[in-house]
């Protein structure tokens, strides 16, 4: 056998092996289509119209076993695809974004950013949201049946959540869904509930936000969060990853009037934020840094929620070994020092922790880092516990 033939055969075998691998765990478990839906390239479109209705509801405002508080990502403890019954109510909450700086935010689930939803490519989400902006909703006292989000929030309530009332029409726009926005993302008045479905046709890290005009104000007021859609076949490094964290960068535009902070529209239009944060507080990832050991492979699911600025994300002392732009395995980059993301862009980034020490996470646009877009990862020695 010539070397050339051997190479060809090896390449053939490798191709076969890769194909088998890509197909192995999940393709047989695709969820069935419902009446009226259609399929293109294995993806599902043409979902049923949204329902808007009224319900008496004063129970947990966040439901779903894969709904977590930042920086956590809920594990997917199932194979193949499933249906997620997810509830995420929208309501006002007084939150702190910097020491002594708190404001009546418009939120999903009571935190800014809102909870992170984790699903798998091909999963179906049955989503329910009540506009509870006209009632005070407590999130620090977890209700039965609520998502793991509440325990995580209670363990680290860095936004010092207090119920607030700020009646306002709102809506929900999942970038992870492929639907007609004038149906599913429609605006509902306080007291109304909307229910619709979407199918996670594409893998990636997606923004969700309020799409009610004016979107600038609704997002600047706090209505956004992340959805992680893990690829059907996973990322190629899944078996090597030691830690996974979710980071959402966003800007706040606040001005002090009397003793209170309110939305500053002029600053928002001038893209002159008062604060830029990771996970909604200038100290969120400083007071409770991310943790790893030397030699660990750390994966970050990173979303720049904006509403208007870019993020140039960098880990001081690290190089991103792999980056999947927008979180799609097809978009792979290697050896990146900084990842530039526009508003609502995202990336999955991995780096190997070189040694024990402190690794600062920054938006390398330093005017933003100075405004709060900074955090830290603390690494202990390789053989520590």
């Amino acid at each position, binding site marked *: 056998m010539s070397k050339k033939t051997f190479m060809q055969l090896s390449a053939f075998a490798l191709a076969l092996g890769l194909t088998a691998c890509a197909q192995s765990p999940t393709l047989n478990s695709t969820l069935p289509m419902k009446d009226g839906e259609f399929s293109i390239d294995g993806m599902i479109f043409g979902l049923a119209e949204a329902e808007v209705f*009224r319900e008496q509801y004063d129970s947990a405002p966040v439901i779903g076993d894969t709904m977590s508080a930042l920086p956590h990502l809920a594990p997917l403890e199932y194979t193949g695809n499933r249906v997620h019954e997810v509830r995420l109510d929208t309501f*006002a909450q007084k939150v702190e974004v910097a020491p002594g700086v708190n*404001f*009546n935010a*418009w939120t999903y689930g009571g935190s800014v950013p809102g909870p992170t939803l984790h699903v798998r490519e091909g999963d179906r989400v049955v989503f329910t949201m009540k506009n509870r902006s*006209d*009632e005070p909703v407590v999130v620090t006292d977890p209700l039965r049946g609520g998502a793991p989000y509440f325990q995580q929030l209670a363990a680290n309530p860095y936004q010092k959540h207090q119920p*607030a*009332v*700020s*009646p*306002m*029409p709102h809506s929900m726009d999942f970038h992870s869904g492929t639907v007609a926005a*004038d149906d599913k993302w*429609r*605006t509902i*008045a*306080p*007291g*109304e509930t909307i229910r619709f479905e979407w199918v996670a046709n594409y893998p990636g890290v997606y923004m969700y936000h309020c*799409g*009610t*005009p*004016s*979107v*600038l*104000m*609704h997002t600047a*007021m706090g209505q956004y969060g992340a959805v992680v859609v893990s690829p059907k076949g996973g990322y190629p490094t899944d078996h090597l990853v030691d830690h996974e964290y979710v980071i959402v960068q966003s800007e706040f535009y606040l*001005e002090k*009037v*009397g003793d*209170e*902070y*309110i*939305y500053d*529209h*002029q600053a928002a*239009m001038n893209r002159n934020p008062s604060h830029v944060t990771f996970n909604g507080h200038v100290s969120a990832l400083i007071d409770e840094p991310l943790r790893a050991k030397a030699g660990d492979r750390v994966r970050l699911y990173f979303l720049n929620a904006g509403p208007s600025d870019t993020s140039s994300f960098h880990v001081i002392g690290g190089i991103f070994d792999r980056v999947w732009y927008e979180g799609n395995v097809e978009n792979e980059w290697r050896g990146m020092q900084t990842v530039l993301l526009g508003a609502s862009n995202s990336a999955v980034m991995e780096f190997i922790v070189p040694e024990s020490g402190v690794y600062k996470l920054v938006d390398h646009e330093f005017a933003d880092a100075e405004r709060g877009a900074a955090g830290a990862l603390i690494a202990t020695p390789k053989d520590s516990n």
Partner: protein
Amino acid sequence: MIKRARSLALCGLLVTALPAMSSQVVIPAGEFVSPVILDQEISRVWVDAFRLDVQPVTRNEFADFVRKHPEWQRDRTPRIFHDGGYLTNWLSAVEPGSAETAPVTQVSWFAARAYCEADGGSLPTLEQWEYALSVQRQQANLNDDDYAREVFAWYTQTPFISRAEDNEAMLGLLGQVNEWLEDYQLLLSNGEKIDFGGGSCGDTARMLANFDAAHYATFLRYQSRSNYTPVTTTSTLGFRCAYPEE
């Protein structure tokens, strides 16, 4: 009561007070330049003089109305006229139970309209109400930036002290409740798709007569009001009535 009397006196310096109708003021006729562009061009319309309630209708006043018109008591009003929340914050069908002089809220557009009709008036039109506010803003010397702050603060329910030089002249049009209007629903188009607030996602440049914070704040009021349905009842939605000026 004291506050109301005082506001009337101060308003009297600025607009015509009506001794016989102590709870109303005359909004003088004038030109209204719409701050929101609804028809591709800036519209200037002449608004005839009309009378306007000095304050939003109070819980007590609405209680009087439902006593006289039992069909508008919360347990009798058909569900086509409200969303289920109608006056649910009251002690009973005819008693607010507390805060009697506060603006009535949790009333649907249908109920608010019935009240004004029974009183010989009507809900103000969008143009009447916004025009009244523009007149008041001028008289109170409320500058654009402070006006914008006041609107944003109210929408987020943040305690706020108005910087209007003459606070009382504002007639409580800002800072109390969002108010029902006769024709409050907007129509914004996207090509052949004509619909309400969904016609915009915040691309306000095509809809603001002047691109500043004050106009943006006003647009926020237009569009958030427009997103309510006529059956909506919420804790910050009330109303006042307008009457023809003979």
